[in-house]
């Protein structure tokens, strides 16, 4: 183990080096460019055995990655924002073919207006594509999650996106503990593939036409594969924790046990929320945080278990759902809670779009709002935090 200072971009590139994938096909885009840039240097310096394919677009990157995975290769790539959006067509193909690929994504907002800074609209755009999605709080979690994702994807035979907040994480130096190369190799083990088009003794056809008579059955199977991922993720995470001392879960509860109010949040803002909770706890307020790490699969049972019995909950979305109501995390949490008897009163907050800074005082305001509700005042069901009226 060695302690180093790394940005999330550097940390994920280092994880890729230690994983030593067979194929990386990628196209640069701000703010994830650095991941591929650093990794291409590892390729040039002979530090990895990877076949590096500098393609002409992200659509081609996703296509080359999917093809390589179908050939039985261990495959990774990195992208952001418009790049992820351009991959969209192919991203629905990869999980349907049940191919394990890991994308290191840096969460940057989608145009328009054009903006290179952080929000979660790019990965939210892919929420129904069939990829697992893991949002991280810091560089350490980015590094650990990329390594875990290799094992998870190869046990679930579904691909995963590990995403870190643009600039806030991608370009900020943080202290991380890096594993030894051998420890990473030992943890991820031999590459597992569901099939290989290069296996000439067992000829197969990948991606054939599939009409009214079988398409539905194939999608049903894909849906089941996603349903089966939570225990796989928990098992790999637990093993990682046992070996290296860091464990994350599908969600993380922070000072939630005796709380009556909580913020549900994803990504780097979880760190800010914990800070605010610590301050408010000093004043005797019973507040907590639930950090959602896995957005896909949706951790319904874990969310319900952790929010049942709470009185007031604010769900923070760093994306606008454009459905005329609430954003994706809010609607998912609220929908899950419908099954339990002791449901908290729940409010949605859209925040931080286009990289708008979120300070501790902003999150304190959210808890202040919940206190107002507690004292009998009415507030809007869905609110916009930090926008000028």
């Amino acid at each position: 183990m060695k302690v180093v200072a790394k940005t999330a971009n550097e940390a994920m590139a280092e994880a890729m080096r230690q994983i030593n994938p067979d194929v990386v096909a990628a196209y640069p885009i701000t703010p994830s460019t650095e991941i591929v840039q650093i990794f291409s240097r590892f390729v040039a310096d002979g530090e990895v055995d990877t076949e590096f394919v500098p393609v002409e677009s992200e659509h081609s990157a996703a296509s080359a990655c999917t093809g390589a995975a179908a050939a039985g290769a261990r495959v990774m790539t990195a992208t952001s924002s418009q790049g992820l959006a351009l991959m969209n067509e192919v991203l629905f193909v990869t999980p349907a073919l049940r191919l394990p690929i890991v994308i290191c994504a840096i969460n940057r907002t989608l145009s328009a207006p054009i903006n290179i800074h952080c929000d979660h609209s790019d990965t939210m755009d892919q929420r129904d594509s069939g990829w697992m999605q893991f949002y991280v709080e810091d560089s350490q979690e980015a590094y650990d999650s990329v390594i875990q994702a290799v094992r998870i994807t190869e046990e679930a035979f579904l691909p995963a996106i590990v995403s870190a907040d643009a600039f806030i994480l991608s370009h900020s130096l943080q202290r991380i503990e890096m594993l030894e190369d051998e420890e990473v190799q030992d943890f991820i083990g031999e590459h597992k593939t569901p099939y290989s088009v290069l296996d000439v003794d067992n000829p197969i056809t990948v991606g054939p036409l599939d009409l009214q008579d079988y398409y539905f059955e194939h999608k049903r199977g894909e849906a089941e594969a996603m349903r089966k991922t939570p225990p796989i993720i928990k098992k790999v995470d637990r093993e990682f924790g046992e070996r290296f001392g860091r464990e994350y879960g599908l969600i993380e509860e922070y000072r939630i046990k005796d709380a009556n109010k909580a913020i549900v949040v994803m990504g780097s803002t979880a760190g800010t929320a914990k800070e605010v909770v610590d301050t408010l706890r000093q004043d005797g307020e019973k507040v907590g945080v639930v950090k959602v790490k896995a957005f896909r699969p949706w951790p319904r049972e874990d969310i319900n278990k952790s929010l049942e019995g709470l009185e007031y909950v604010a769900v923070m979305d760093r994306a606008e759902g454009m459905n005329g109501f609430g954003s994706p995390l809010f609607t998912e949490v609220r929908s899950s809670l419908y099954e339990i008897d002791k449901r908290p009163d729940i409010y949605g907050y859209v925040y931080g779009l286009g990289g708008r800074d979120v300070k501790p005082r902003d999150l304190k305001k959210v808890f202040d709002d919940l206190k107002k509700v507690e004292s009998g005042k009415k507030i809007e069901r869905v609110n916009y935090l930090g926008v000028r009226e």
Partner: protein
Amino acid sequence: MAEKKRGWKELPIGAIIDEAGSSEKFKTGDWREGRKPVLNKDKCTNCLLCWIFCPDSAIIVSNNEMKGFKYDYCKGCGICANQCPIGAIEMVPEEE
């Protein structure tokens, strides 16, 4: 009798086809609409241009001789009739 269709739990992973040559089981001839090719054996010189151009491998050839059409796979595109240099293939209404 039609093959019993499998349920979702019985299918190979990733929607792959795990046997070679299975496209023969997919009888695309029922996509044909309205007209089909017929051969005038008296005119045919067995040049086999129809066999070369048919996009569905639906021309039956035996001992270098044009024998007719696999109507289970012919989609009725008419390329064979168009390519035949001596007009030995005619597209006719399906009923005939």
